[in-house]
């Protein structure tokens, strides 16, 4: 493209852009969608009270539940394909895809080993799955898959953990894993250590829910106003979602492995170390 053509292209693009903005302002269409108030939309994003999806004709569930099933289904199919076709062909010197898989596994395995050095086998696997689920689940909302609600309207499927039920599930399950690890390693002392962190399931659940919901709310807000629908969604929609996906996966896995490391640490060893320190 020579300089003349480029200049012509920029001028045409600028004219169209300005004409659209002027049109939006002049026609008073700053509020789009028309039939729905922003408050109602945001409230529904938080509570999922209005739009339900029928699950195999058995029960009505929140849209995030369907998202969770889809994300899990995709991940399971991916795991099966990788296990059958890729892992048996692993080489000593890895290729690009093998390296990606190894990096992902090593990242969580090392995190588990660092934060819970005495018992890192199970928690490594758990944080690998949890991290993958949170990350892929959060990115899932970028695809904007449509589903039909019980009211007959179409809805874009949200991230699985933007539903409070999904977030509570992750928080409680993580707490149970930590508690279970403590009991398995230290018995009653481990149980007491785990129960000491009784606020953990609530804090974890609401941290996840709040973080993911904030992203969804900002995106909803941006998309609700037509004037904000230019360029901005790329930043707030895509970049925020990417950041949320990585940050939340990192936060939950780090917290889970750290607490797991604390409750599974042998009490005798701690006492001995304290004695040694005192003697030193």
């Amino acid at each position, binding site marked *: 493209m020579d300089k003349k053509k480029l200049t012509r292209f920029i001028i045409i693009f600028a004219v169209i852009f300005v004409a659209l903005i002027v049109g939006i302002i002049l026609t008073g269409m700053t509020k789009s969608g028309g039939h729905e108030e922003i408050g109602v939309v945001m409230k529904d994003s938080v509570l999922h009270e209005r739009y339900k999806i029928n699950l195999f004709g058995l029960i009505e569930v929140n849209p995030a539940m369907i998202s969770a099933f889809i994300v899990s289904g995709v991940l399971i199919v991916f795991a099966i394909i990788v296990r059958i076709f890729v892992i048996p062909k692993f080489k000593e010197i890895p290729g690009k895809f093998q390296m990606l898989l190894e990096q992902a596994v090593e990242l969580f395995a090392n995190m588990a080993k660092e934060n819970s050095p005495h018992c890192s086998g199970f928690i490594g696997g758990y944080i690998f799955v949890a991290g993958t*689920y949170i990350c892929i689940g959060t990115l899932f909302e970028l695809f904007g898959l449509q589903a039909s609600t019980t009211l007959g309207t179409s809805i874009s499927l949200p991230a699985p953990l933007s539903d409070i*039920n999904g977030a509570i599930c992750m928080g409680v399950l993580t707490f149970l894993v930590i508690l279970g690890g403590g009991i398995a390693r230290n018995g009653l002392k481990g149980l007491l250590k785990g129960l000491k962190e009784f606020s953990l399931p609530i804090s974890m659940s609401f941290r996840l829910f709040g973080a993911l919901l904030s992203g969804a709310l900002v995106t909803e807000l941006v998309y609700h106003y037509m004037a904000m629908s230019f360029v901005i969604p790329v930043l707030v929609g895509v970049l925020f979602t990417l950041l949320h996906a990585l940050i939340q996966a990192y936060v939950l896995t780090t917290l889970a492995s750290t607490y797991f490391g604390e409750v599974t640490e042998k009490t005798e060893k701690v006492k001995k170390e304290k004695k040694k320190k005192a003697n030193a």
Partner: protein
Amino acid sequence: MTGVPLNIDWQQILLHLLNFAILFFVLYLLLYKPVKKFMDKRKAGYVEMEEKTKSNLEASEQKKAEYEAKLQEAHQEAEDIRRHALEEASAHAKERLDQAQAEAGQIIAKAQQQAEDERNRIVAETGEEIERLAKDAAKRAIFESTSDAFDSFLDAAEGKNNE
């Protein structure tokens, strides 16, 4: 609405739990564990290889040290042999020199002795000749005149010398 705030639904929580449990077992067994196992196996292989290399290196270092010691020993031995040969050669040369000097001394002594003997013999012979000539001259002097005797003495002495 079930009356629980924030639309919390226990049934859906359990559904999420079931969903995640299935996902966990599948991903753990099909993805995490095999990849981890492969990585651990490879790591163990590398560790074993490293240990093997280390032990080989140690063995080669030990052999090198042994060879160096042997080389040093051989150098020392060669030096000893050389020194010994030098000492032997030096002793032999000294012996030969002494012998030559002794022989030379003997030759000189012998020559001196021979010269001394020759001188003594010549002196003795000359004395005898002088004695004989003196006796002849005395005999002539008795029988001839003094001048004749003297002339004849001189003639006789000249004749002897010309011989």
